[in-house]
């Protein structure tokens, strides 16, 4: 469950990136966060992922109130939230397998168990057999899928993705979306930020529309 209550976010004394945001996402929901570039979609996702605290208001994720959570406790929450940022943030000094294994190294999992889980995650996103490749040797779509594999290897209950199809051709984008749908079908709460109206329309899911830091429209589409 994700719940925002009167959430504001600003940097320093600047304008509010988010202003009085209120919404609730139930466990297992698939939700799009739409809006133009600079609308505050990425900031919203960062608040859910515990990557940044809100300036005001309360943010509840998986029953924890993030805004009151001490900084040292937030990493443990992040392990339950798979985050895929617009820039994949893959590490190019290691192969694909080691990239996927990083969250498991963080958790201190044994090499064999970590290896099995990483291979399974890569298989789920259609990258089986590409474990030894360096991410730089992969296509844009494969890199995006690798980032998804890294986000899901911890078996998160929430998956958030910021413009995951932005830099991909239509086919690759659709394949990525199918990967997200598959995870959602097994109960993973999924939030995807996008400004691609056609893409969102084709999935007919609930969409939270954000513009200028405010929710201008909330559509509940079954």
């Amino acid at each position, binding site marked *: 469950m994700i719940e925002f209550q009167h959430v504001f976010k600003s940097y320093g004394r600047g304008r509010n990136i988010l202003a009085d945001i209120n919404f609730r996402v139930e466990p297992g929901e698939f939700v799009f966060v739409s809006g133009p570039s600079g609308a505050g979609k990425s900031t919203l996702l960062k608040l859910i992922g515990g*990557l940044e605290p809100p300036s005001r208001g309360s943010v509840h994720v998986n029953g924890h109130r993030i805004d009151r959570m001490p900084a040292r406790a937030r990493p443990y929450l992040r392990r339950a939230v798979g985050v895929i940022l617009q820039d994949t943030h893959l590490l190019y000094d290691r192969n694909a397998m080691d990239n996927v294994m990083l969250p498991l190294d*963080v*958790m*201190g999992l044994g090499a064999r168990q970590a290896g099995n889980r990483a291979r399974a995650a890569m298989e789920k996103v259609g990258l089986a057999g590409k474990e030894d490749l360096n991410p730089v040797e992969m296509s844009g779509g494969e890199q995006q899928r690798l980032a998804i594999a890294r986000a899901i290897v911890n078996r998160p209950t929430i998956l958030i993705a910021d413009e995951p199809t932005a830099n991909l051709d239509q086919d690759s984008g659709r394949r990525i979306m199918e990967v997200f749908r598959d995870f959602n079908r097994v109960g993973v709460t999924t939030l995807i930020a996008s400004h691609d109206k056609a893409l969102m329309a084709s999935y007919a899911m609930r969409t939270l529309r954000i513009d200028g830091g405010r929710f201008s429209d909330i559509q509940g589409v079954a």
Partner: protein
Amino acid sequence: MNRWLRQHRYALKVALRRLAVQPFSSLSNILVVSLALVIPILAASVLVSIQPVARDLPVSPEITLFLKPSAGPDVAGKLADKLEREHGEDISQAIVVTREQALGKLKENPSWGEALAVLPGNPLPDAIIVTLADTLQGSGQASSLAAQWRTLDEIDTVQLDSDWVKRLEAILRFGRIGLAILAGVVALVVLATVFNTVRMQALAQREEIGVARLVGATESFVRRPFLYLGALTGVVASGIAVGLSAIALQPLNAALARLAQSYGTQLVLHLPDGVSLLLSTIVIAILAALAARWSVTRNTRI
């Protein structure tokens, strides 16, 4: 293997990988720390080598009273008795060395024998060697007694034999303080070098640190490889410094042997003992790890 150990093993692996990725840069940083460490190790070698020599020297002050050549043959004995009577508490013993005994002792040395043979008579005076009591408080009291005896009619010269030992001890004390200051300066060099090394590494690994935080790494997890990097730098640099010091002592000892021989003595410089070197390596490793922690905390702040 438990989770804690696995995370430490991972941190060590990452630290080694980061060292290996930039071998020349890593090696040059280690060498800078090593060269800085060589100086106090050599200074400590000199101190620990000289200290036993000073320790073996008679440090209980002896005062030698040389009588005037005109003094009669029984004056020395009477004066020695008088001194023991009047300064019984301050004196451990007073031995008379007659001019004949002194000459005989001198003649035992072949290098003096020939010179003395050409002299028409015995040029040496009678002497009284006064060993002061251990209970004597400080060198000031010995100097005061020497000054008092210098005024006696029968006395020509008074020599406080422990003066040069005290000077040597003062030099060693000065050396120890100098070494402590030097160690402090070197500690600062180690801190600054490791701080900068880790700062550069932290900047180079910014992406990796960001991703690790993204997937739920704690700050300890992020910092740990840098702590290992600092500690490893300290340990390897200490090892190299000990090796370089040992190499440097070879030519120094060869030169020192010739110098010491000219004074009829032997002096060999050696490294401090293994336990001291091990302890100093541990201290350097801890210091370097602390510098690394400080640096990574400052340079990777969110």
